[in-house]
């Protein structure tokens, strides 16, 4: 960990800094997804909606309102978190597949709304397909550290949740929601809480990455592929585990980097195969399978 903090001061290439920063951000995003979907088992296919909202809030605040960066991203997180409430309330009552589809619909609707809003209402606010250009940001090292902080925050919260009563309730919902409800757990409230926390950090991350990218359009920040990456990274690492997102995001980002350059077409095919193999042979993901192995060995030894 300390090593990671020192890296930018060494002479490693700007590219490596950027790569590590990207890994941090993916760990952060995957971690957010894990907080809601990993713990409760409600597969959220619309996570990118909050990411996009956060991106736009920061973009507008910084480019039109000249609001400083840190304040902007905090506001982005808050706005996303608040929007999660009216969206989560109805959708978290749905079961399994329906929740997934509803959240997907939410994210896609958001994309369309941001694309059409200006035209329909007749203003020049979100800029629709033209996108928004943010002020030019500092060098990659800056984003490296921000990414690091966000990642630590998200993973830290995931860990804290796991050991808290809140986390216990979440897992109870995953295992047997009905039973949890009967034993007095206000399941909706618990689910909403997790959903809003996840949305807050996704919004915040969206704001940071918007500043990093310097230019955003609805197509870029509401891309369903972003959600899908979060899902696959979680799966690979181990859904519902604390370190799962770390392992999954790092592994997949690195594979992507290694393969993508020389095998542009086959990279995706290989990821597809990895996903299939992991699902069939290691459904608990890397961390999940390892932990179970360790646990069972401990039990056998006892």
């Amino acid at each position: 960990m300390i090593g990671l903090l020192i890296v930018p001061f060494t002479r490693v290439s700007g590219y490596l800094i950027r790569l590590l920063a990207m890994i941090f951000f993916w760990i952060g995003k995957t971690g957010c997804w894990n907080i809601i979907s990993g713990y409760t088992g409600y597969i959220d296919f619309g996570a990118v909606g909050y990411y996009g909202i956060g991106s736009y809030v920061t973009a507008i605040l910084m480019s039109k309102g000249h609001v400083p960066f840190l304040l902007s991203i905090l506001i982005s997180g808050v706005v996303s978190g608040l929007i999660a409430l009216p969206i989560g309330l109805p959708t978290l009552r749905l079961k399994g597949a329906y929740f997934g589809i509803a959240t997907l619909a939410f994210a896609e609707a958001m994309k369309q709304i941001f694309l059409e809003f200006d035209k329909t209402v007749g203003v020049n606010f979100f800029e629709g397909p033209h996108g928004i250009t943010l002020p030019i940001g500092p060098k990659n090292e800056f984003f490296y550290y921000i990414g690091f902080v966000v990642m630590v925050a998200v993973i830290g919260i995931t860990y804290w949740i796991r050991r808290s009563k809140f986390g216990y309730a979440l897992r109870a919902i995953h295992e047997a929601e009905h039973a949890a409800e009967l034993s007095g757990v206000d399941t909706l409230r618990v689910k909403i809480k997790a959903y809003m926390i996840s949305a807050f950090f996704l919004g915040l991350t969206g704001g940071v990455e918007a500043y990093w990218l310097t230019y955003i359009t609805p197509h870029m920040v509401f891309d369903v592929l972003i959600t899908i990456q979060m899902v696959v990274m979680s799966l690979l690492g181990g859904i519902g585990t604390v370190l799962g997102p770390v392992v999954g995001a790092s592994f997949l980002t690195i594979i992507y980097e290694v393969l993508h350059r020389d095998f542009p077409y086959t990279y995706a095919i290989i990821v597809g195969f990895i996903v299939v193999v992991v699902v069939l042979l290691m459904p608990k993901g890397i961390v999940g399978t390892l932990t179970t192995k360790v646990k069972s060995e401990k039990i056998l030894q006892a």
Partner: protein
Amino acid sequence: MRKICFGVVIASLVVVFASGIALAQQKFRIGCADPLTGTFGRDGNLVKDAYTFWADLINSKGGIEVKGKRYPVELTFIDDKSIAAENAKFTEKLITEDKVDLVLGGFGSDSVFAGSAVAEKYKHPFISGAASSNKLFDRGFKYYFSTLGKATEEVRGCVDIVQVLSPKPKTGAIIGSDILFTSLACEGYKKYAAQNGIEIILFELFPITLQDYNSMLLKVKQKNPDALFVGSHLMVAMKTIKAMKEIDFTPKMVTFSYGPTVPDFVKNLGKDAEYVLAASEWAPNLPYRDPLSGTARQFNEDYFKKYGRNPDYVEAASAAGAYAMQIAIGKLGITPPVKEEDRVRLMEELHKQNLMTFYGVVKFGADGANEAHPPVLVQVQDGKLVNVFPKDAAEATPWYPMKPWKER
């Protein structure tokens, strides 16, 4: 322990860089992040083919000539999957990790927007021949160059042609997909329509992901415009023609900002592609020439020999961009490995350049756009693209009005 690891890492990096530098000395290494898959995969591959054409051509002569010696060129392409953020990342990788001498731009305003921002940061001249959105030129960048003019100007020929058509179209409808280039093309249509006295009775941008065009075009058909102006890339152009036929809609003329010049358009649509007009910035019959590629017509023929298809104007523009860079390098006497000061001088030289090429004049304005490049208009006639406007450059008269589907 940590200190030892650290030392090893530094040492190995030094070795890698040193050997990289040693190897790089004899040739120019040029990198390009380009969409090879995804929405613009097809178009991105055209750009790749164009740069490869130029590289193979110059290498067949031994390489770029600098101070009497020849240095071959080595191209590296990285696929950005039509995702702008990826283009930024890969452009940075090419510059900082692979330490290429120079970069060239890929296809499309989105990718180029992102990649050129990175290039500007690292003071790498970035020439593109495949992106024209006005916003690209509004950023105050010094290192961004484009052999294409601005999107809103590119479509000028599409509208000005009404001056030579009779009976002159009086009304027009403008539709286009909602992404950067095409929405700007639509604004260009609007501007020139006003200048030509055409009344615009409908203006609509639709999502690039729209599956079915019939219902939207129905609205256009009902308003009965004389001319239909479409902001498009290849896929949108193909879908529009198919839909127009299905709902039996034939305005007097239909023109696309991009698409018909890609050979797939005519190949896939066959007879249905006839009469279609398209914006272009180049046609083989134009009186341009340069020492490397010969005349425009020769470029056209050589390209056909190499790839089995005629070049699209974007391919011509891209190859011309690479050529412009080559000439500037030769003039300044820059040899590989290229240092930062060299690239700054290269940037200044490119701004001063006023070069005749097989593609036409390349003269970059202060904002990077090619100032001296008049747009032309081509039309599909008997399965071939012919230059129909402006009159002094035309090789055929425009077919007008468009024959209704049922009469063909």
